Structure formats: C-alpha cells, structure tokens
C-alpha cells in the first residue's frame, strides 16, 4: 500500500466521525436528563420502540419464508422478484411512503376495499409499522438469504435421509444453522425501522403519540427547541452504535 493513502483515508474517517462528535459536543450534560425524560420525548421513544419491535417482528415473519424460497428454489422470474424485493433498499423513502399511500390509502389499490369494511390505515400507528416493515424487510432478506446459501443444503439432505419431514428439517436444522444470520439481519432491520423517517412522514404523518416517532420528533423540534432535538438525536446515535456493535459481533457487517 502506498503510504500517501493514509491521508485521504484519515480524511474519510474524519468525515464520518466529525459530525457525530459535533452532535455529542452540542449536548448540554446539565439539561440532558430532563430533555430525554420529558413527557413528549418519552412518548416518542416509547412509540419508536413499540413500532420498531412490531416492524422487526413482521420482517421476520415475512422475511424468513421469502429468504428461504429465494435461497432454496429456482423458478422463472426469480431474479426479477429478488431485484424488486430489494428495491426499498435504494428507493428514496419518501417514494416508498407515497407508494404505500397509493396502496393502503382511501383511494389506493387495497385501501378502497379496506375502506369498505371500515379499516383506514394511513396516519395511524399501524401505518408507521407498515412503513418501517416496507423499508426494513430487504435488510433481513439479504442477510438471511446469504446465510442460507453459505450454510448449503448438505445438512438438510442428511436430516431428510434420517427420516425428518421437511418442516422438521426446517425447524431443527435449517433455522438453527442460520441463527446468527437471522439475528444480525433482525438487528439491522430493527435499526432501519427505528431510523425510518421519509416513508413514515409521507404515509403516516406526524401525530404526537400516534405516528410521531423519534426521528420525526427530532425533525419537528429542530427549529423551535434545538436542545431537545439534539438530546433525542444523541439517544438515536447511542442506539445506532449499540446496533453496529451487535451486528458486527454476529458478523453481519
């Protein structure tokens, strides 16, 4: 390696670390406890934790079967399905939110039928969970499909010749073997749920206690009460650091 690479490399590291330091330095330790434990902050934090947990659970429920089908079968159009499923990863979140609005909104693809039976999803807490699941699902599917491909089918074949039905093989061999991949995928999905902003504000709005999660609260407060916005941001930074540490431990990153 040429020695001069050290210089741009250090620049790149500083580029990431400096803004994080800036927000940490902006925090006033004296007022921090009060700001983080204010009723509106706690309300947003509680809502964020609830929705992100529900979103992650939905990701696991939907993502495990999808990743397994993608990793263990081949069918016409599979490549296309995989590409489409991964799309929310690169789609601007606001576009995802708009897409969800035209799906579940009152005049949306499914929303019209839902409206007839009295179910309205947009601008509810459920909408927050749906938005989070939509953008986080690809993270889980990617990690898990990779883990499934790496672990291969040899153990599953042995289990089958030992008399285990496909469901038993899936439960007792396939899933335990990819448990680390599933765990790190879930952690990444949880982090993406927790940080969701664009799709949420488009599809679920910004109603305190109902759809106003931490990132939305930060955005809301940044002008009127910058100290509170910074305090909440610090909480999100700490959670993000914990997630990275956790995911790296499980070797997802």
């Amino acid at each position: 390696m040429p020695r001069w690479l050290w210089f741009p490399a250090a620049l790149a590291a500083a580029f990431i670390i400096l803004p994080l330091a800036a927000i940490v330095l902006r925090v006033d330790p004296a007022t921090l406890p009060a700001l983080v434990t204010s009723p509106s902050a706690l309300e947003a934090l509680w809502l964020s934790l609830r929705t992100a947990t529900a979103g992650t659970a939905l990701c696991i429920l939907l993502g495990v079967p999808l990743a397994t089908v993608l990793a263990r079968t081949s069918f016409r159009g599979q490549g296309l399905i995989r590409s489409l499923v991964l799309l929310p990863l690169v789609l601007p979140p606001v576009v995802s939110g708009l897409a969800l609005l035209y799906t579940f909104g009152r005049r949306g693809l499914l929303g019209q039928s839902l409206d007839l039976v009295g179910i309205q999803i947009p601008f509810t807490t459920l909408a927050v969970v749906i938005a989070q699941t939509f953008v986080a699902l690809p993270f889980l599917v990617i990690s898990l499909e990779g883990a499934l491909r790496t672990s291969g089918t040899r153990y599953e074949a042995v289990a089958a010749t030992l008399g285990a039905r496909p469901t038993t093989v899936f439960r007792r061999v396939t899933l335990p073997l990819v448990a680390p991949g599933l765990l790190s995928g879930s952690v990444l999905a949880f982090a993406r749920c927790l940080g969701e902003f664009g799709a949420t504000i488009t599809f679920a709005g910004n109603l305190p206690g109902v759809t106003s999660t931490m990132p939305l609260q930060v955005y809301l407060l940044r002008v009127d009460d910058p100290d509170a916005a910074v305090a909440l941001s610090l909480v999100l930074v700490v959670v993000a650091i914990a997630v990275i540490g956790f995911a790296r431990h499980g070797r997802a990153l």
Partner: protein
Amino acid sequence: MSALHLRAVIARRGIDVTLDVAAGETVAITGPNGAGKSSLLGVIAGLLRPDDGEVRLGDRVLDATPPHARGVALLAQDPLLFPHMSVLANVAFAPRARGVRRRQANELALRHLTEVGAETLAGRRPTEISGGQAQRVAVARALAADPELLLLDEPMASLDVDVRPALRQTLRTALADRTAIIVTHDAADARALADRVVVIEHGHIVEDGPTEQVLDDPQSGFAVRLVSGSIK
C-alpha cells in the same frame, strides 16, 4: 431389512445401471472417480432424480417417495454432524424425528453410541471431537434411524490411515446383517465389509461378483488396479 432393486438412467452423465441387492447383503461399489457411484446413491436416497429408472425396496416402489419416507440412510464421506447439537442429540435426531419421546430417544441414542464405542462422547459438541470419532458418531446416527437400507459413500476417505481399521471393525459389526451399499476405493474395505463387489466404469457395471472372486481374480481394468494397490 429389505432387498433393493435399482435401475437408474442419467443421460447427462452417461449412467445406465441396473443393480439388485439381496436382503441382508452388503455390496461394495467401486470404480474410477466420476464413474457415477455417488449419483447412484443419490438416486436411491431420493436426493437425485434420474431421467428414467426404478427404485424398489422390499415391496415398496420408492420413485415418488420423498427422501424422509424412504427408510434409506446415507452416510457420507464427511460426518456432517449437526454442529448446533450435542453428540447425543445428533444420534437422537432420527428417533425424535419419527416421534419417539425425548427420554426414550436419548436412551436409544446412547445404546447406538455404545455400539460404535463412542458413548463417552455423548455430551460433547461435534467441534470438540476428532474426525474419526465424528465418523463413528455419524454411523451411530445413521443406525439410530433404523434404516431398511444403509448407504455409505466412502465413509473412510477423509480419515487418517491409522484410524481406519478401528472404524472398519465398527462397520463390520454394524453391517453384519443389514442391507447396505458401500462406495469405496479401498480393497481392504471391500474385503472386510462386502459380500459382493460391483465395479462401475463410465456409468456402466463392468464387473459384478462375490468379493473373493472379484478381488482374487479381477477382470475389469479398474479392479485389477484396485487389487494391485495402485489406487489409494
């Protein structure tokens, strides 16, 4: 324990084999690499679909039967013990899968571990035992499935030469009155374990006879080389 009738055609690989194994008989299949030996085991176990053919075990036609319902256990070159289970749980896997209660399954597993001389390893993890020990446990695990037919695909190929005789002895006891097919490149394995030797070259059976006859008076090119010791 059941007799096997196999006919398998895999056009892409040029394989066309018809083979019968009597109930309780152990047949050694040998032949050069790529001759199609492992593919035949795959067809019998239901892991590989032939272009044409038939697999009959006893009076059951298995062609449409999924692997788990065939009563055919496969022991591969690698032990492939489930890494997330203890040795005991590995051996108890098959009984548990067919609905035996945990306690009884564990007792059964311990009996099979004792049978292969590995009962002291019961509490260990697969990563904590040697290759030879792992293959012993794999034998116990296959036996615990109580298979009507046992398939062994070069079970000793990945083991050190000095641990092979011990495993061979274990297999000799285990296969004594079982229907089994063992793929091997080792004349000593065939002599110790098999009643009959079948030589496959280029996807076809080129020699088939009682072990002594084939090994003492080999006719096919591969069998001559096998006996002369030029294949290891």
